[in-house]
Every structure is written in C-alpha cells, then in structure tokens.
C-alpha cells in the first residue's frame, strides 16, 4: 500500500481500491467483536449475580431494544417520528452531551485546585491561557480598548495563536509525522509486534 502511492498503473489502482474496501468490511466485523465482548462482560455479571448485575441487565435490555428497533423498524434511519430516531434524540444524545458537559465543572475545579503558577514555565502557560481566554471574547477588548491597536488583548491573543502557537504545534506535528512514519515502517517490517498481543 505504501508502494502503490508511487505507482500510477491501473492495476495498482485496482488493488488499492479493493484493499481499501476489504479493510472497511473487515473493520465492521472488528467492531462487532467489540460489541460481542460487551455482551459477554455484562452477561457474566448477571449470571454470577455480581454487585452491579441489575445495572448490567439494564445495559443488555437497552442493547436488545435498540438493536431490534434499529434493524426491524421500517425506515428506522430516516423517520424522525420513529422509535429509533426518537430514542437517539431523547436518550442517547442528551446523556452523551451531558457527560461531556460535566467537563466544564471539572475544568473549573481543576482551575481552582490544580493550576499552580509554581514555576516560570507554569506561569507562562497560565498567562498565555488568560490572554487567549480574555482576548477571544469581548471582555478583553473592553478592558484594553483604550490601548493602541496591536496592544489590545484581542490583538495579543491573535498574535499568540498565529505565531508562538503555530511554532509549537508545527514542532509537535513534525515529531508526530516522523513518529508515525517510524512506527508504520516498524509494523510493516515486523519489528513492532505489540499488536500481536503476546510479543511472539
């Protein structure tokens, strides 16, 4: 697959397309294995009457319900009034959204309890964060609107994003790119075998 990138022949292109399609199909089965593992885990908890077995029953019942509704309801994917889409919008969606909304509280708590300006570098990080937080909303310009253009908080925030932030992320991306290339080569050449799950 690495070599085909440099080979414009139609046979190479055909193999490339079949390989991509095959990988997607194999990947679907991989995802099915994940769901099978989930069912195994919760069934085991129910069978052995572990402490949270009632909640596991809720999980399996919900899984069965959504699978049946999704697979056997007519036009499940496109009917906004159907049970499948209603369950998505009024059960799955709000719970997922709220779980991530909790992070707002945790970040506030972390800001109070964990973000300490103990070293010069930590202070630099916090200062940069404060400038960007204030500079990207109207508060920054309200506080520093009396300063000449270029020195207001929004200008400094823009400067931080356009220049030092770009430099930092570029360094990281070059490192990541080289790392991915190295790891891909190691996988292809059989040097990296952790994915075998045993080292042999």
């Amino acid at each position, binding site marked *: *697959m690495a070599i085909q990138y440099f080979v414009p022949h139609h046979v190479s292109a055909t193999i490339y397309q079949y390989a991509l399609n095959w990988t997607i199909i194999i990947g679907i089965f991989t995802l*099915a294995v994940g769901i099978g593992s989930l069912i195994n885990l919760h069934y085991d908890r129910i069978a052995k009457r572990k402490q949270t077995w009632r909640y596991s029953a809720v999980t399996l019942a919900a899984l069965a319900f959504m699978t049946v509704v999704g697979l056997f309801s007519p036009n499940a994917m496109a009917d906004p009034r159907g049970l499948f889409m209603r369950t998505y919008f009024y059960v799955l969606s*709000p719970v997922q*959204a709220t779980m991530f909304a909790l992070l707002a509280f945790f970040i506030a708590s972390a800001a109070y309890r964990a973000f300490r300006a103990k070293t010069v570098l930590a202070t630099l990080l916090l200062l940069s*964060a404060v400038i960007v937080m204030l500079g990207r909303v109207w508060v920054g310009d309200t506080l520093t609107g009396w300063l000449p253009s270029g020195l207001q908080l929004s200008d400094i925030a823009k400067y931080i994003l356009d220049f030092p932030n770009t430099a930092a992320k570029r360094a990281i991306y070059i490192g990541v790119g080289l790392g991915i290339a190295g790891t891909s080569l190691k996988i292809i050449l059989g040097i990296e075998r952790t994915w075998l799950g045993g080292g042999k």
Partner: protein
Amino acid sequence: MEVVSLGSILWMTVAAFLTLCIFSFLYKDNPFYIFAEHLIVGISAGYWIAILYHTSLTDLWIEPLANSALAFGSPEGSMAGKIGMLLVNVAPGLIGILMFSRFFKKTSWISRWPIAFYLGVSAGVALPLFMQSFVIRQVAANMMNPADILSTMTADLTIFYNYGQSTLLFWQGLGQIIIVLGSICGLAYFYFSAQHRGILGGAAKIGIWILMIGFGATFGYTVMARISLLIGRFNFLIDWISAIGGYLGV
C-alpha cells in the same frame, strides 16, 4: 411561541430526566447516575449495530455478495470472471469472521490475520501521506526567505516613534522569525538522543518556552469548549421548561 405536542414534551421530559441524572454525579455518585450510564452503554451498542448494518454492511458486502452469487444465473460474462467476483466478495467477509475466533482461547491466534491485514493497509497508506503532510509540507512552510522577513520587519519602522500610526508589519516579521526559530527549538526540546547541553540545551530551553505558550493557548480554547458544552445543556433545559410552559399556556 410554537406550542410543542404532548408526545414531544414527554420525550423531552425523558431527556431532561436523564440529563439531571448525569448532573447528579456532581453532588456524588448515586444510583440515578449509574442507571443512566449503563442505559447509555446499551443504547449506544444497539445503535452501533443498527447503523453499521444499514449504512455499511449491506451495501459494501451483502449486496455485492448477493449480486455476484446471482450472476451465476445470468448468461452474461465468463464463468472465470463470475467465480473471481464471488471470491473477491466472499474473501473480506471470511477474513472478518476470523475475528470472532478471539472469543475462544484455543483459536484466538487466528484473529491476528485480519488484524494484520487491517494494520498493514493502514500503515502502508499512512506512511507516505503523513510524511508528506505532517513533515514535508510543514518543513517547507518553515523555509521562509530571511530577506523577505527582514523586508517585512523594516517596511514600516514608524512603530518605534509613532506607534498609533504604524501598520505593525514589524510584529508580523518578528512573528515569522518566532515561527521558524520556535519550531526548530521545539523540535530540539523533543530530541532526547543527545544531552541538552550547549547549543542544543539553549535551543531546548527556548523550545519549551514556545511550547508552554502554545499549550496555554490550547488550554484557553479548551476552557471555551467545555463551557460551550455546558451552555448547550442549559439551553436544552430552558427549552424543555419553555415547552411545558407553552403547552400549559403559562
């Protein structure tokens, strides 16, 4: 205000109840939160099955497989071609089914084959393209002509004696120097094959300063992101209360 139907209000109430169940975790872990958590795991898994079946499995595998099997009943095309197409469509499914061998200890080694196929394709595809986009294009963008940078910086020197009238090009030029030197110094910081002493040590020190400024900017944006998600939930709760109020005519 548009009056929402009773059915929709009941569904919104279910959503609001589950939202509050999750929020209750902020006080402490409790059965309502655990119930909502387990419910969503099951609903998500069932959702994944339905979506994968309807959007992917049918048109990428089941349909082509059925068509290639039905082709044997048609007089068109050669037998070799039909057998070939059938094999091409059967093969990915067979390889995928091998994944299920993971559930049995004695045969779990077989599942390494489909994993190997997937990893091989992904690694092969990623290698040249990540090198190009993440490394070559980024390094190329870093190669700025020093003469251009200098001319940008010196284009408008009124910044030193009449700041209010300046076009601030000096800062743009300085910023370009920050990008070039900052990314080199950032890379120097991540180079652990030699001790950070002398020039490398100095560059690494500048690099970590640049990295901290970058991470600070990321933190600032992350705060905005998290607050935005919370605002989204509050907006929903307000809509729910408004819908009930609208229905009751309050």
